[in-house]
């Protein structure tokens, strides 16, 4: 685990809703977390729990016109991004916070060369001439380990493999030397053999630049490899946060425990993988109390009535559940 640096990004009680014709979808409903320099925070949860919406609302790029931040603060090195104008946000994107999207096949514009797309990102940061920017772009490709970078600059995205494209997307993301990098399931669309290489590459970039990384995934294997801390998200809220090791050893929220129990293990053979019964709540029709209550095996009346408070459990470990006692883990 990297030595804890200063906090670069702090999200406080963020609420971001989608106003659709079927009702208000509370995609992000009171999310708080802090991200330190050189640290990787994993954001895990099922599809549709609000992970990507959290990332997009940090960058103020929620789908328009439906998405809106209704409450909360996003503090980047102390400045609140929620109150910034669109033109101020443009100077934040790419230069201070970047994001790697999930699918490399569609992330690059098919009609422009890879070089011009990297140069475009560099131009936002550096006021150099075209030749200098192209040299920088070549350097950027070399740093993400693309072979023959000078030739690759002239290539079009369709002439590259998925893994290569995702490297280019990575190069674009770090081109502006941001302080925070959000990686939204960056390896989900890649071949398993390429996934590890890409994760190692991200780690190397982080070691060099002391980037703070928010790593969105639903793969616990990747979390174990990549993340210093984990935040588990369920139905628009973070239900448990903790250091990766502590959370893996002793998950305290029933949802975290159930989620981890459903991960297949190499050493034990089972007839059937345990799964979590039921469906996540509809985000525009949220239960009053704990959102996990309808699927939780330990549920009682209080869970259905009231949302549980955040309970500190151990060092940097906390969970939102009525059942957890505010004490350090016993084991």
């Amino acid at each position, binding site marked *: 685990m990297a030595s804890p640096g200063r906090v670069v990004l702090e999200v406080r009680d963020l609420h971001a809703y989608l106003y659709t014709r079927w009702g208000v979808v509370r995609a992000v409903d009171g999310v708080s977390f802090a991200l330190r320099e050189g640290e990787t925070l994993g954001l895990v949860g099922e599809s549709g729990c609000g992970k990507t919406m959290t990332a997009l609302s940090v*960058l103020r*790029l929620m789908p328009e016109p439906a998405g809106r931040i209704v409450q909360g603060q996003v503090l980047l090195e102390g400045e609140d991004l929620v109150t910034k104008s*669109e*033109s101020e946000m*443009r*100077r*934040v*994107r*790419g*230069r201070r916070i*970047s*994001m790697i*999207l*999930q*699918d490399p096949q*569609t*992330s*690059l*514009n*098919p*009609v*422009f060369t890879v070089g011009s797309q990297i140069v*475009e*990102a560099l131009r*936002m940061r550096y006021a150099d001439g075209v030749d200098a920017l192209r040299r920088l772009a070549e350097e950027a490709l070399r740093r993400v380990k693309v072979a023959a970078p000078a030739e690759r600059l002239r290539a*079009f995205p*369709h*002439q590259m493999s998925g893994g290569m494209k995702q490297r280019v*997307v990575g190069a*674009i*993301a770090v081109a*502006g030397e941001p302080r925070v990098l959000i990686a939204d399931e960056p390896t989900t669309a890649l071949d398993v053999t390429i996934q590890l290489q890409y994760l190692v590459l991200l780690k190397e970039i982080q070691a060099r630049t002391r980037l703070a990384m928010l790593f969105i995934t639903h793969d616990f294997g990747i979390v174990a490899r990549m993340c210093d801390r984990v935040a588990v998200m369920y139905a628009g809220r973070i239900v448990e946060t903790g250091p990766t090791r502590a959370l893996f050893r002793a998950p305290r929220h029933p949802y975290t425990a159930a989620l981890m129990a459903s991960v297949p293990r190499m050493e034990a053979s089972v007839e059937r993988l345990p799964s979590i019964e039921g469906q996540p709540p509809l985000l525009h029709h949220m239960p009053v109390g704990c959102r996990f209550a309808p699927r939780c095996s330990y549920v009682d009346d209080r869970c259905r009535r009231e949302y549980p408070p955040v309970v500190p459990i151990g060092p940097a470990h906390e969970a939102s559940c009525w059942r957890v006692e505010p004490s350090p883990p016993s084991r």
Partner: protein
Amino acid sequence: MQRYILRRLLQGALLLFIVALVVFALARVSGNPIDLLVREDATAEDRAHLQKALGLDRPMHEQLYIFLTGAVRGDLGQSIRYRRSAAEVFFERLPNTLKLLPLAMAGALAIAIPLGVLAAVYRGTLVDRLAGGLAVLGIATPQFWLGIVLIYVFSIQLGVLPSARMGGPSHYVLPAVTLGVFLLAGMMRLVRSSLLEVMGSEFVKLARLKGLSQTIVIWKHCLRNALIPVVTLFGVYFALLVTGAIVTETVFAWPGVGRLTYEAVIFRDYPLLQAVILLKAVIVLSVNLVVDILYAYLDPRVRYA
């Protein structure tokens, strides 16, 4: 790329041959030109004489052979009505149509692209709905009706624009508008819908993640992609107009190839009709080739396939 073009040219030649066969057959089932050419009181002898002079008394396959071998050499026969080379008559008229078309198309594009972009960016607002309404009106309005209404308003009532024939710049306004309105409507809708589709792409999100302004994202990243289907439609429309400005040119007595087609049909001028249709087919094929090359320029995925 060269191989691609060569392949397209060969396909074109084959297609032309088929068109020639169809044209030849169609002209002969549509009526007898002798009836129109001779006076009503002509004797059977006169009619036979004329038939022989035109070569229409020979067996079909011989007529076809003469037509095809002539066509390969560039000789499409003599126009019965004009008593001159049919191809010559066609090429005399072609510039008149070609002078009108670019005006109509450029005008339509110049309005369709910005309007389509506006409608897409401000989708669901009043701007979008007004543009959509205009488009429906433009597509639904028949050209002959629009032409006549324009003549009535601007030539007869207001007396500001000439109603027919070629002349100074003012003569171009009404026919170009009549042709352009139809184009404008279709293109505007296509620009809007294809832009909307592109705006939802991941690469647009990435472009915004780089910190690019909305203007650059729309006009550079989105529009370039959105224009690919528009170019295809443009090619189709261009071909359609070269061959099909018949209505507009007839309404405005414009001496172009559209009106020539009309005349050739009315007077059963076989050689002229054959020449007109065959030469138009050549034009359509050439335009399509140009469009495909342009397409390859816009979309690198086609270029290297």
